[in-house]
């Protein structure tokens, strides 16, 4: 033990570490009492980020960021026992970061902790939020399976909607004329060097501000922030009832981080990493790219807004979000912090959380996507194996109707459910619709024979709650 003490004393004498580290660890923080557990979210986000660095370095030591080989190296990593787990941790860690940074932002907003003197703390946090979303997007892309490949194409197409520079920006994302050899390296550099460097910078700044301005005290009703007196009042508060950060507050951060990391590693072991899709071969056209869960709500919003507004929403939507988040601490730097005095704050958070959950669910179902892999209607549903009704069912399949219209649980949900079409429309109405089409349904005028239409009408008219003539299922029919 003597030698350890000797080395430490020497080290401390030549570096002066204890001179700033010990005061930093023991700096007084407000006694948070019943709100104390609300203060663990930021540190948990940071610790999961460190988990991402550790597992990211482990993955990068085997991943080859080459368009032709990345997919194979991921398969190689996933096939090893611990590679499988490390990929799982990195993947669930990404989800955890998004959830934690989101709840952390909500907590700071509800507690009014973005007000004076902590405006820059909020602004650096907003930067970190968008950088984390950037990491999430570039990260799922590095999987470089079919979905990873097509998400670059879709990103380039979305960027293409930017006024004036759209075409250039789209090709800049692709790193050239087409998505190929040069594209992946660009996203690898973004994910592994560029965005993490910015995250390090903003975390450093964010933490510096937390120490300089002090962590916000739990808000109390009737105690508005006045920039003229706040700093002095806060110092008095610390003096009166402050507790040392280490260990009085830090133990909760440690316990919560252990729980979070335990859940991440547990899920990684039990559930494992997301499966690799098909290879990133652009000539395989059996592809239905979908975003990861954290972007599903945005995917749903873009899919459901009126078509004329799409170009504006793709570009202006995220811009408005950034402007609102940036303006918040600048336009409301003082006044009441307590959410009970700012009831609209609760309302706004409720609306945002509900929207993300609701549109996320809708995006998961994606009713606007045709079900191109829907199995053909079985003869039990059709009700007969031959005759016009059976021929009409074949037309229903061949013409692609089934991809968008559901019948008895089979098919897509882009268009109306036609299980009881015979009860809802006359054959004349159906025929008109088939020939004229609709905004989301092609016109079949010139694309369908008279015989096919008459079979199709026979089939659709037979879709009734109570068949006009019972159709007994014979054994041949099955």
């Amino acid at each position, binding site marked *: 033990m003597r030698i350890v003490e000797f080395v430490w004393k020497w080290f401390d004498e030549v570096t002066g570490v204890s001179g700033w580290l010990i005061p930093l660890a023991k700096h007084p923080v407000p006694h948070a009492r019943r709100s104390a557990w609300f203060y663990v979210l930021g540190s948990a986000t940071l610790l999961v980020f460190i988990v991402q660095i550790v597992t990211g370095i482990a993955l990068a030591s085997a991943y080859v960021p080459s368009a032709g080989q990345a997919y194979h190296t991921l398969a190689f990593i996933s096939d090893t026992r611990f590679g499988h787990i490390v990929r799982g941790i990195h993947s669930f860690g990404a989800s955890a970061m998004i959830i934690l940074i989101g709840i952390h932002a909500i907590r700071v907003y509800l507690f009014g902790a973005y007000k004076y003197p902590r405006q820059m703390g909020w602004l650096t946090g907003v930067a970190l939020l968008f950088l984390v979303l950037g990491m999430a997007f570039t990260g799922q892309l590095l999987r470089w399976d079919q979905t990873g490949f097509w998400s670059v*194409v879709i990103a380039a197409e979305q960027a293409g909607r930017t006024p004036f520079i759209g075409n250039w920006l789209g090709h800049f994302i692709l790193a050239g004329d087409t998505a190929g050899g040069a594209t992946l390296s660009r996203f690898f550099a973004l994910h592994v060097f560029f965005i993490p460097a910015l995250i390090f910078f903003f975390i450093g700044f964010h933490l510096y501000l937390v120490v300089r301005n002090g962590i916000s005290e739990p808000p109390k009703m009737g105690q508005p922030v006045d920039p003229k007196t706040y700093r002095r009042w806060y110092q008095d508060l610390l003096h009166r009832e402050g507790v040392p950060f280490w260990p009085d507050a830090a133990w909760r951060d440690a316990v919560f981080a252990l729980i979070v990391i335990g859940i991440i590693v547990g899920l990684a072991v039990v559930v494992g990493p997301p499966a690799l899709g098909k290879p990133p071969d652009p000539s395989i*056209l059996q592809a239905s790219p979908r975003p990861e869960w954290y972007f599903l709500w945005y995917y749903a919003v873009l899919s459901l807004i009126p078509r004329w507004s799409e170009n504006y929403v793709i570009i202006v939507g995220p811009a408005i979000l950034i402007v609102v988040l940036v303006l918040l601490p600048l336009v409301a730097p003082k006044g009441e912090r307590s959410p009970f005095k700012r009831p609209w704050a609760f309302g706004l958070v409720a609306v945002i959380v509900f929207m993300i959950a609701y549109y996320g669910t809708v995006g998961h179902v994606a009713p606007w996507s045709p079900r191109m892999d829907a199995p053909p209607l079985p003869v039990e549903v059709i009700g007969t194996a031959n005759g016009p009704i059976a021929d009409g069912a074949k037309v229903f399949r061949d013409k692609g109707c089934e991809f968008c219209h559901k019948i008895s649980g089979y098919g897509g949900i882009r268009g109306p459910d036609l299980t009881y079409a015979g009860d809802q429309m006359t054959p004349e109405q159906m025929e008109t619709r088939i020939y004229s089409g609709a905004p989301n349904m092609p016109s079949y005028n010139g694309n369908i024979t008279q015989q096919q239409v008459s079979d199709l009408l026979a089939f659709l008219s037979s879709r009734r709650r109570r068949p006009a003539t019972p159709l007994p299922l014979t054994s041949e029919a099955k």
Partner: protein
Amino acid sequence: MSEDSIHDAENSSSGTDRRRFLSRLSIVAGSIAGAIVAIPSVAFLLGLRKVPHVWRTVGKLDDFQIGSTVKVAFLDPSPLPWSGVTARTAAWLRRETAQQFIAFSVDCTHLGCPVRWLPDANLFMCPCHGGVFYANGTVASGPPPKPLTRYPVRIQGGDVQILTSPLPITT
């Protein structure tokens, strides 16, 4: 240098001028050093690789039946040695008459997802948002703002060739 001499230097006007000059010199030196590193780095990043458009043979004339639309796969204009399967690209090709072909980009003009050909329905359908195109590439329904992009096709000897093009980006 003792504190006194610092004080003296600050008070003399020549010392102030000298300090101002040295501050500016440091800022200018640092800016130049930064710029000569940043300019080539940023220029390299922004400089997009332009590749020539080249004709790629996608099959023999006799391989294609008149009236049928088929997927053809070919190499993109200038694949890099490490491009692997991503060097491949595809198009929908139809032989209209004995000597006339028509080729469409597979990318939906809405957001670039690969459209599929439904041979019995005579339609292209996009799996992402249900955009539908007629056989001639015009929009039949759904969100696509423009017809499918066409690639130039030619017959050279007995070969059918497609002129490779950049990914069409709807602006």
